[in-house]
């Protein structure tokens, strides 16, 4: 009898223990977590009582913009809007990779929400139980985010869902077209040669040859003119690759698809035509001899010494690099037009339709919720509000309502300018660079542009007179296990071989006409076909599945 009583007692204790240990908060979304809101509370609040979340981010990549803090108008607005107070932990952007890796691996002193380096890291940390799987909350707690991306036509979910169906992080968003990489033409040299901005590849080539023939266009008596340059080979692909039918932008992996079949651009005829063309320019002394080692700093240096006729880079650099030219320095006119924006070049390779590639939208640093967060549902809602609540989006993009913009009679945005004629300053209010979701906003991209009517006009021409093409293969950041395995095995080698041969073909160290097959064979040996197969899998489960 005593034994039975003891067993009963033990069973009761165990049952009580189990009940006590049951964690109801992790049973998935309850959908009524904000039931504590009371009549009279603003509708936008996420909680009746002020709640505090801790957030780890970095200072941001640009020192021009202030790091996140509750003193900035944007974050003040968000606190009032959500009734959620943020305790910021803002680490240095330099070394942030080490900070995140160490803290995720150690799993101690984690904040509620943190910006992580790559979505792949997030997957690893998620598997280790350090990050929360947001998939169960996706449909119920991320309604704004879902609506936003649906309206944009971007399958955001496939960008962030791991192979086993979990969502450990949201990636940041980039603006679709503002500040695109394009060709920029030296206004003085165009004038001297009496030429217009080219619209076709043939016109472009003629212009470059005319510049070469004209000789001393900068008038310094030295043969130091560089007719065409860019920030390295990748920069050349970004600015004129599309004239050869390539789908290249911001160093994407060069894979495209036609009729549902993925092919490698690295080994395509388009790539061969493109490299042959560059080789021709190189032989004629038109292409920068130092193109292999070029970057934005060297570009600035060459433009400042008035040696560049045409260059390819982000369009806003027509303004800033233009200001470096000797004429701009002499005239002391910061608003002058010293470089003119080009349009996408039409050619026989793109059926005489010049086009720009649309930038991938979901590319920014990812943000995750850690398992140390006590209020996961609220954190999900807060992230959703920050990401895509329409009112918050307005503040992010245009600044504070009433100060920087107002709603017109039909609800449209009317931009307000400072009464004293000074440029609008949205970035200093925290709207230029929003960590956790938007590393770049329209506010930042267009701030100050209103002082350059010529630029705005040309940008509009660039935007409207050229086609904008969406990549035919989505450039995801997160892959499924099999894809990942193939990519980790071949990607570096294939890209490395391509980079080597590209430089050799363009700079005459190898003959593209006689050695192209040798190059193709080496690419094949390095796993080019296998890599194409992996991208076919990516295509099939994303665009193909749709």
């Amino acid at each position: 009898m005593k034994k039975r009583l003891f067993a009963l007692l033990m069973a009761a204790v165990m049952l009580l223990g189990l009940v006590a240990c049951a964690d109801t908060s992790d049973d998935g979304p309850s959908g009524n977590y904000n039931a504590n809101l009371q009549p009279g509370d603003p509708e936008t609040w996420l909680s009746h009582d002020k709640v505090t979340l801790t957030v780890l981010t970095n200072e941001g990549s640009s020192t021009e913009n202030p790091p996140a803090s509750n003193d900035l108008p944007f974050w003040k607005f968000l606190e009032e809007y959500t009734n959620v107070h943020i305790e910021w932990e803002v680490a240095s952007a330099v070394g942030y990779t080490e900070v995140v890796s160490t803290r995720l691996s150690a799993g101690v002193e984690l904040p509620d929400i943190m910006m992580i380096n790559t979505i792949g890291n997030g997957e690893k940390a998620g598997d280790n139980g350090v990050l929360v799987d947001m998939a169960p909350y996706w449909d119920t707690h991320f309604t704004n985010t879902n609506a936003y991306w649906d309206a944009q036509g971007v399958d955001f979910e496939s960008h962030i869902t791991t192979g086993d169906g979990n969502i450990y992080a949201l990636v940041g968003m980039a603006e679709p077209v503002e500040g695109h990489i394009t060709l920029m033409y030296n206004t003085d040299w165009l004038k001297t040669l009496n030429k217009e901005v080219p619209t076709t590849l043939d016109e472009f080539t003629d212009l470059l040859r005319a510049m070469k023939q004209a000789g001393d266009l900068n008038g310094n008596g030295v043969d130091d003119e560089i007719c065409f340059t860019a920030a390295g080979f990748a920069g050349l692909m970004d600015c004129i690759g599309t004239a050869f039918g390539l789908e290249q932008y911001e160093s994407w992996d060069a894979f495209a698809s036609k009729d549902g079949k993925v092919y490698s651009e690295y080994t395509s005829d388009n790539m061969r035509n493109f490299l042959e063309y560059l080789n021709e320019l190189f032989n004629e002394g038109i292409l920068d001899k130092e193109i292999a080692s070029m970057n934005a700093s060297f570009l600035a240096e060459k433009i400042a010494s008035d040696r560049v006729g045409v260059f390819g880079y982000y369009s806003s650099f027509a303004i800033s690099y233009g200001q470096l030219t000797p004429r701009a320095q002499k005239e002391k006119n910061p608003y002058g037009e010293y470089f003119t924006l080009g349009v996408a070049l039409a050619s026989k390779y793109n059926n005489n339709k010049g086009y720009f590639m649309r930038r991938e939208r979901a590319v920014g640093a990812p943000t995750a919720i850690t398992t140390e967060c006590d209020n996961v549902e609220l954190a999900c809602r807060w992230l959703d509000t920050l990401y895509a609540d329409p009112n918050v989006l307005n503040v992010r993009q245009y600044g504070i309502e009433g100060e920087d913009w107002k709603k017109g009679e039909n609800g449209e945005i009317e931009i307000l300018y400072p009464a004293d004629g000074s440029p609008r300053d949205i970035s200093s209010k925290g709207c230029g660079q929003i960590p956790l979701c938007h590393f770049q906003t329209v506010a930042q991209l267009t701030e100050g542009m209103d002082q350059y009517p010529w630029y705005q006009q040309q940008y509009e021409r660039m935007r409207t007179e050229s086609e904008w093409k969406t990549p035919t293969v989505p450039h995801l950041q997160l892959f499924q296990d099999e894809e990942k395995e193939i990519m980790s095995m071949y990607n570096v080698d294939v890209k490395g071989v391509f980079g080597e041969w590209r430089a050799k073909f363009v700079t005459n160290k190898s003959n593209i006409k006689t050695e192209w097959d040798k190059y193709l064979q080496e690419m094949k040996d390095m796993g080019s076909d296998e890599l194409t197969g992996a991208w076919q899998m990516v295509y099939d489960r994303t665009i193909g599945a749709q």
Partner: protein
Amino acid sequence: MSKNANRIKGSKSDYVLDAIVLTITAFVIIVTLYPLIYVVSMSISDPLSASRGEVILFPKGFSILSYKKAMADDAIWQGYANTVWYTVVGTISSLAATMLGAYPLSRKSFVGRKFFNTLLLVQMFFGGGMIPTYIVVVKVLGLYNSRWAMILPALTSAFNIFIARNFILSLPEELLDCAKIDGASEFRIFTNIIIPLSKSVMSVLTIYLAIGYWNSYFPSVLYHGDSSLHPLGMYVRKMVIQNSILNMGDDAMGGMISAESLLSSLQLKYTVIVIAVLPLLLIYPFFSKYMKKGLMVGSIKG
């Protein structure tokens, strides 16, 4: 008789050797000095000349705009103050810990001396790794966002302890025996005999430690979420890496950057480097004789 007459005439091979030594020395001096002069020249040149790549060695034009800009930034002064704190407190603490560790290990009468020496030797070659260290510093010691996170995790190094231990071993044993016969305790021997006689090794260690603390920034990357605790090294890194034109271009992704920012970002990094290394450059001549001594200290016993 002139002085030259007293000189021993060298052989031909001596002259050849001298010439080779002088050439190598001149080469080393040029290689060492060039970057230093270049950095200073870039920082005080006209911004446009600096961006055009016209500065080869000496300044082209003159401008102190970047110095004005750097000095107007509160973060640089905050970084300076923090670095001075880390250097002074860190050096004193480390020196004390090193000497306190070295003395018992040098005493033959110390029980377990061999064991502790081996233990020290092992950790010289095998570290704990970044993540376990992080857990110890943050979770066990609770030093997250504390100034001591810059000092305590690397308070002593086995290498420094061995240098100090070898030096103490080189002191005559009879001195310590005499003190003992006179009734001095171990503590008194340490403070009244060992410390005064170890000034040279302590000077060398002070220089090593001070330079180490002055340049240290990585612990701050890991343990300081609060930027008001960041040392000057973090500021320099930020300026050099984060604020470069290349970075601005890539990260701007089409955003508006003024020419003034482009120019100042290039020059600012050189300016910040000058500001950061200036104190060390000014102090170094006064300690150079100890540095020379330090190369030999601890290497010879007896």
